[in-house]
């Protein structure tokens, strides 16, 4: 229909630009990659300027001309949280120059995320961290894939909750990504050995109930190093050892089954009948006791999850020197999260030196 209209051929040109560009000088400027959208700003009458985290190319700034026109090849395509396959003409050398989007397709759509506000907030947090990490240049494939895994899990949980089924707490998904993010930046906290001298920390269950932890030193400390560094003025936190063990368990729970087990839920089998499972437990993991199911001893929920969240927040803030905005919002909702002996958020003593 309507193929006689001139507009169609230009749409065709947008949808299959590679055909048009093939054999021309432009072909060498064409790049393509799998991307997640970090931000978008309307530009002109119908265009969008988008910032992307590209799997192999890092931060990319593009202009998507006519993105808001209904007959554009990418009308409605450039949305948050979806994995997109885009191709674009590389930007010129000028500072601040934008690449130009030529074609795009939806690789993974995560459309239920926004239907569940808790999942939505955590998903924005994932993008916010990517935005802080993204640099122009080579991408970070491992980080990109963990971000996709986090968004997948959040979308899956949101879909489940829309069907009134149990799902793992989005906070657990978000915290796992936070820790993975720190690891990707080379900032993973030392959890089972002393960050300063490398000595093995007490084994789970056999050691002390509390342990010293210094973000500036890079993590957990043995008692000797803690005393020494503290005398030099370094901020040393006093944490429950179990908290660090929980963080290690969370990092190890890379697939859905392991993550859900940590949240005290059986992972749904791929063929699970969602109706039969409806109302089988709490709608959100409301903590031990709220569900008839017996949670495993190592379950990470309720106050333990809140304490872990608080600790990860403080560690992230220390390294990023900023507090991601979505994080502040999510903390306002979790008013019960507080760590015993936590330094006040407003004014933790400034670490005097960085030991790493």
């Amino acid at each position: 229909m309507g193929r006689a209209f001139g507009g169609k051929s230009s749409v065709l040109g947008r949808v299959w630009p590679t055909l048009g560009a093939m054999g021309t000088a432009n072909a060498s400027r064409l790049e393509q990659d799998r991307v997640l959208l970090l931000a978008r700003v309307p530009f002109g009458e119908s265009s969008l300027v988008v910032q992307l985290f590209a799997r192999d190319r890092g931060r990319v700034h593009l202009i998507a001309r006519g993105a808001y026109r209904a007959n554009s090849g990418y009308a409605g395509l450039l949305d948050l949280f979806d994995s997109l396959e885009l191709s674009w003409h590389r930007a010129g050398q000028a500072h601040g120059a934008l690449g130009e989007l030529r074609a795009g397709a939806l690789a993974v759509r995560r459309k239920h995320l926004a239907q569940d506000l808790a999942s939505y907030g955590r998903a924005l947090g994932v993008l916010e961290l990517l935005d802080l990490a993204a640099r122009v240049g080579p991408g970070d494939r491992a980080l990109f894939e963990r971000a996709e895994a986090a968004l997948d899990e959040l979308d899956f949980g949101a879909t489940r909750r829309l069907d009134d089924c149990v799902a793992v707490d989005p906070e657990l998904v978000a915290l796992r990504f936070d820790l993975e993010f720190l690891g990707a930046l080379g900032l993973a906290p030392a959890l089972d050995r002393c960050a300063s001298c490398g000595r093995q920390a007490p084994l789970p269950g056999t050691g002390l109930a509390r342990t010293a932890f210094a973000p500036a030193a890079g993590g957990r400390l043995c008692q000797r190093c803690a005393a020494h560094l503290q005398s030099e003025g370094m901020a040393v936190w006093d944490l429950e050892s179990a908290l660090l063990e929980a963080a290690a368990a969370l990092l190890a729970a890379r697939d859905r089954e392991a993550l859900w087990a940590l949240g005290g839920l059986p992972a749904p089998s791929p063929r699970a009948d969602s109706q039969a499972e409806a109302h089988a437990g709490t709608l959100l993991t409301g903590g031990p006791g709220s569900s008839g199911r017996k949670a495993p001893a190592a379950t990470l929920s309720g106050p333990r999850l809140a304490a872990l969240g608080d600790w990860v927040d403080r560690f992230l803030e220390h390294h990023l020197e900023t507090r991601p905005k979505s994080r502040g919002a999510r903390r306002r909702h979790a008013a019960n999260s507080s760590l015993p002996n936590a330094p006040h958020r407003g004014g933790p003593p400034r670490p005097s030196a960085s030991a790493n």
Partner: protein
Amino acid sequence: MAYPEPLERLVAAFECFPGVGRRSAERLAFHVLRDPKARELARAIEGALSNLVRCSVCGNPAAKDPCELCADPERDGAQLLVVEEPRDVEALERARVFRGRYHVLLGAMNPAQGVDARHLALGRLVERIRRGGIEEVILGTDPDQEGEATARLVLEAIEDARLSVRVTRLARGLPAGSAIEYLHRGVLEDALEGRVPLRRRAPPAGKTAPGRDDTPA
């Protein structure tokens, strides 16, 4: 590093705006210092802030309170269309497709951009519905993730307040005048999910066979 205090304040003021980072804020501030038209900008901002009010009924910026749309007795008070921005009201009015009343949130839920539930003044909307007369609330936020989250937020606020009102969402799907072969997966999925029965009339009660009485001649 340290600018004179008035310049630093100007940079900080620009930086508060959405999409403006430190670097852009600095560029804008230097531009203000260079360009004599900046005084006109300052007066325009001052004028807008002192001469415009937010309509106490719908939340839209207006010259008087209530705004013209809210004061118009011809409009249908039973339908309330909730939108994100004043320009959405503009677009709908230009299109002349809606004769009900509006509610403007002045934003979309995005905590990462500093827009949280409390910025959207949902309490005002809930109170407006509670006062009665509204039969249907139409959620007309943008069809993107932020718009969907905002629609969800409004829905939950209405449900939490136990208001008995019909809540609907503007349809997603095929853009009129387009062609299926050029649309991407997301649009096609939405269109399939949001499909509607072609026949408007329901079969008369008691008859289960479809289309018996309303088959066109």
